[in-house]
């Protein structure tokens, strides 16, 4: 009947681990939902943010010509192009000139609004389409009729001044009739962020306004359309290079269509990095969930693993089988995250495309998806390899004998090395693909520090609990024992809750500090009004006017020019490699001034301030951090182009500046006489000692607009509101990404508590059998969760506060104030969450009838 089967030879089995892994996963994904959700959430955040940013940057690149208004744009400050410069441009193609400046539009009822004035010629726009409502030709709309110039305005201006279409406003000394509303302005982005609504007028109207005075803060943009329309970018680059070579003194800023909005791109990159790090935090928090899931899965599978080993599987093969399962699960989570992430730009474009003032070009960005996938898989591996490594050494004796004393040994060296390798790879990815590597490195270091600190805290809490004297209260005894017994929830709760809470506190404190900067700090120190474009000849009249209308208020008036740093110690600005915190000083033009005495709010930290009577060659005083970033020391040389003239100055001293005073201060302060003969204007701030009232401000604005129509007055509150609106949008985006982190943390916490549910039921049933009431058990569990939550909350608040301090003080260069209310609210929320989550699971355990459970033990 039976036939002997010949012994089998040893052989290969390359695909065997995969086959076994797939068989193992037949049981379904139960127990892995937290694992998959955690990876999916993190990957979704990273893929979504990356894809959206890439869609924006692609959109900017594709629309570069339209955004720039031509193939190349040459921008000058204060002055128009000279005849030679204009002739050079016209020799290269079709030229359109546009002038932009900040001005005040006054309604007949004396209400006024800050506007971004844009004066265009008859060729505007060279690229793209301007959409007006009612639709009519631009030249007709802007033409002069009976001494009144036409204009097209942003609808916000009409709303702000409560004017109908066809109403008239005064700008400087010109009367302007608003004949159309601007619906689409193709080159809007090239100008950067504006503080007021657009008012589009003709160049003639601008000249008639009297605002074009020597030294006025006007920018002239010359857009050049190359003859061969869509010629490649090299042609544009060649013309740009030729312009710089032939007209080196022009001091213009040159942009080509391939680089239409570098500032915006940089900001998108920087913000993307920040959001990616938040996404990565979500992944790291989720990683704890991965580790928990893998650990408890392998514990459930101990018997299967032991059986496989009894049947001849080596430890390495067992590891491979479970590693493959982990990778398959991670792939499921990653795919879900990728699907959601890559849909995000399409979703945003479809839903908000019409109202977002940015050209979104949604498409599938393989690079971003590969990066997000790598983050997802690396995170899963980083957290899973350790427990997987332990599976190698599951003893076969588990099949016939319970462990006498469970040993928690380290996995073998190769698995430890593999884990370290993957963690280093993950950190490497985060740093390598970061826009600012320093920030990424700090993130990696703090993430590692937080993990280590949380493990230590968990160990400390357990050690303290195990050494506590035996309490007389059974409730306390039970709670304390639960905190330190083998297999306690302490490490899991501390890790998942601690990470989530630290992040919540960080975001809350950053948010709170930004709001505080914008609101709370203002009344005492900030000026109420800024005045721009005060002509030198009007200075005395202006001072008298302010003295008459705001007696007792503090007026600071300083000369103001705009200039570009062209070289540092002989090295051209564009050839310099400068760290990001100083790079902005080289980007575009900067406000500069000259002064005989040290400006208020500054102090000299290196070198000497020049004598009040100094009349020698130009000297310059630099803000210390910018000087450090540019590698400039006292005695070295800096060249600045002002009004088409390069001025060489020697660095006389470095200053520390208190920017938060919102008073007038400059990165570059020159010695008097440095700009002799250069026409310029002044800017002024007015500070009311008692804060001032809106009616006082309005009265002064009215008087100034009548007496000095060329002066632009900005209410600080209005300007800050505009900035505040922008920051609020950014904070909402960060908050949105952080929600994913918090969600991950809640998932991990919930998963960990659910995993312990079986033990809790067992424990509760035994204790109930022995006479414990439900109330006493509930009290003991509540005390346990409360203690763990409190210990974690202390750490979370501390770590979050340090991180927020770093971001606010170091990255944003703002003053940091610890705000107890939001920090403590976050801690209380976390505490509540732990107790409620914990008890919710425990309640069901307590309601179990002992008999059925005992029968199945």
């Amino acid at each position, binding site marked *: 009947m039976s*036939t002997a089967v010949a012994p*089998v030879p040893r052989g290969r089995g390359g695909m065997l681990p995969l086959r076994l892994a797939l068989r193992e996963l037949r049981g379904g994904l139960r127990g892995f939902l937290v694992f998959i959700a955690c990876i999916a959430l993190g990957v979704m955040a990273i893929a979504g943010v990356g894809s959206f940013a890439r869609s924006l940057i692609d959109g900017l690149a594709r629309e570069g010509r339209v955004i720039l208004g031509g193939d190349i744009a040459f921008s000058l400050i204060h002055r128009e192009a000279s005849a030679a410069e204009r002739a050079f441009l016209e020799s290269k193609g079709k030229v359109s000139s546009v002038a932009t400046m900040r001005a005040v539009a006054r309604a007949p009822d004396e209400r006024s609004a800050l506007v971004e004035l844009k004066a265009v010629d008859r060729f505007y726009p060279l690229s793209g389409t301007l959409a007006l409502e009612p639709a009519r030709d631009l030249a007709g709309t802007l033409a002069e009729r009976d001494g009144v110039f036409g204009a097209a305005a942003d609808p916000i201006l009409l709303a702000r001044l409560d004017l109908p279409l066809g109403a008239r406003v005064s700008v400087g000394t010109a009367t302007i009739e608003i004949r159309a509303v601007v619906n689409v302005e193709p080159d809007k982005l090239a100008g950067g962020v504006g503080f007021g609504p657009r008012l589009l007028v003709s160049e003639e109207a601008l000249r008639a306004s009297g605002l074009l005075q020597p030294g006025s803060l006007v920018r002239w943009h010359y857009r050049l359309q190359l003859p061969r329309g869509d010629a490649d970018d090299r042609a544009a680059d060649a013309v740009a290079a030729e312009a710089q070579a032939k007209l080196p003194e022009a001091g213009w800023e040159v942009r080509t269509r391939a680089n239409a909005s570098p500032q915006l791109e940089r900001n998108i990159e920087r913000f993307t990095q920040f959001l990616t790090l938040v996404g990565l935090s979500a992944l790291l928090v989720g990683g704890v969930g991965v580790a928990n899931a893998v650990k408890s899965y392998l514990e459930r599978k101990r018997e299967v693993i032991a059986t496989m080993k009894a049947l001849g599987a080596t430890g390495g093969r067992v590891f491979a089988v479970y590693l493959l399962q982990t990778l398959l699960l991670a792939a499921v989570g990653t795919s879900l995250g990728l699907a959601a992430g890559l849909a995000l730009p399409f979703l945003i474009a479809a839903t908000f495309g019409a109202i977002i003032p940015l050209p979104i070009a949604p498409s599938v960005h393989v690079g971003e998806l590969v990066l997000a996938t790598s983050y997802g898989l690396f995170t899963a591996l980083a957290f899973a390899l350790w427990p997987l490594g332990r599976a190698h050494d599951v003893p076969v004796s588990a099949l016939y004998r319970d462990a006498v004393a469970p040993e928690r040994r380290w996995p073998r060296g190769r698995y430890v090395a593999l884990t370290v390798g993957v963690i280093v790879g993950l950190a490497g990815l985060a740093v390598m693909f970061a826009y600012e590597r320093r920030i990424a490195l700090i993130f990696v270091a703090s993430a590692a520090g937080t993990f280590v600190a949380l493990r230590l805290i968990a160990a400390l809490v357990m050690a303290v609990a195990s050494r506590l004297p035996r309490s007389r209260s059974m409730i306390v005894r039970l709670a304390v024992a639960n905190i330190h017994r083998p297999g306690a929830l302490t490490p899991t709760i501390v890790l998942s809750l601690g990470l989530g809470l630290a992040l919540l506190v960080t975001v809350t404190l950053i948010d709170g500090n930004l709001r505080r900067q914008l609101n709370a700090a203002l009344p005492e120190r900030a000026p109420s009004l800024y005045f721009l474009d005060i002509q030198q000849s009007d200075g005395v009249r202006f001072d008298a006017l302010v003295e008459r209308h705001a007696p007792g208020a503090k007026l600071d008036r300083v000369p103001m020019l705009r200039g570009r740093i062209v070289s540092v110690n002989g090295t051209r600005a564009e050839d310099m490699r400068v760290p990001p915190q100083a790079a902005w000083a080289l980007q575009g033009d900067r406000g500069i001034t000259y002064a005989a005495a040290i400006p208020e709010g500054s102090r000299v930290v290196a070198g000497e301030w020049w004598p009040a009577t100094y009349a020698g060659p130009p000297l310059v005083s630099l803000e210390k951090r910018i000087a450090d970033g540019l590698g400039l020391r006292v005695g070295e040389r800096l060249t600045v182009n002002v009004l088409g003239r390069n001025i060489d100055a020697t660095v006389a001293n470095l200053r520390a500046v208190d920017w938060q005073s919102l008073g007038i201060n400059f990165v570059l302060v020159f010695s008097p006489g440095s700009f002799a003969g250069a026409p310029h204007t002044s800017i002024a701030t007015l500070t009311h000692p008692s804060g001032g009232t809106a009616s006082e401000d309005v009265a002064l604005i009215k008087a100034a607009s009548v007496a000095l129509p060329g002066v632009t007055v900005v209410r600080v509150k209005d300007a800050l509101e505009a900035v505040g609106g922008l920051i609020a949008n950014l904070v909402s985006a960060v908050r949105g990404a952080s929600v994913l982190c918090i969600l991950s943390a809640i998932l991990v916490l919930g998963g960990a508590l659910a995993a312990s549910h079986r033990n809790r039921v067992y424990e509760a049933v035994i204790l109930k059998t022995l006479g414990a009431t439900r109330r006493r058990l509930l009290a003991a569990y509540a005390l346990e969760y409360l203690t763990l939550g409190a210990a974690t909350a202390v750490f979370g608040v501390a770590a979050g506060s340090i991180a927020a301090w770093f971001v606010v003080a170091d990255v944003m260069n703002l003053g940091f104030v610890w705000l107890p209310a939001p920090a403590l609210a976050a801690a209380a929320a976390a505490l509540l969450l732990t107790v409620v989550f914990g008890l919710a699971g425990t309640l069901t355990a307590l309601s179990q009838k002992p008999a059925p459970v005992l029968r199945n033990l």
Partner: protein
Amino acid sequence: MNDTSTTVAPQPAIALRGVDLSLGRGAARVHILKDIDLHIGQGEAVGLVGPSGSGKSTLLMVMAGLERPDAGTVEVAGADLGRLSEDGLANFRGRNIGIVFQSFHLIPTMSALENVAVPLELAGVDDAFARAAHELSLVGLAERLNHYPAQLSGGEQQRVAIARALAPGPAIVVADEPTGNLDESTGGQIIDLLFTEHAARRTTLVLVTHDAALASCCDRVVRLRSGRVEAEPQKAAVP
């Protein structure tokens, strides 16, 4: 083994010399096996009996290479198990030793066929599934190939476990209370199956049991008490 006679005694299937084993740590450490010397011949059927805690199962696991002794040597099928690495032991088991457990230890996510195929797959056999199906038909489960363990009765599960142990054609089969979780009638069928296959395949069979009927089927019974081997009667009744 210092036999100097002219006829060479056949090499034993299992030879234990001075085997000593303690488990646990610190205060929980228990001395389980004490200076065990035991030889089991090729093709022999040996029953290990003794009271609970006497070290029977542990001794069986030492013979199967699942537990390493603290002292002494274990030779199985001519190989000194002490010289094999952890992975070497796993490979050795896969080729030479079939194990049957009291609690069957089938893998719940695999069908009967897949469970039996696992050791063949691990050994790299090409027609693992055909051979597994054949083994299952030999234990009377040709109709249950695609059933999962949860869909099989206890007796059927133990048959699958026996088929799995025998599938790679091991020289030695060890069984730890193979009828312990079964009723008397089913246990009887399993005993029949084990001994029929033992005879047909000429394997060495070592089993731990409390079951007198099962022990009486063995060629020899080895009695353990407090970790030591008591005198070995040729064929003894179980206490």
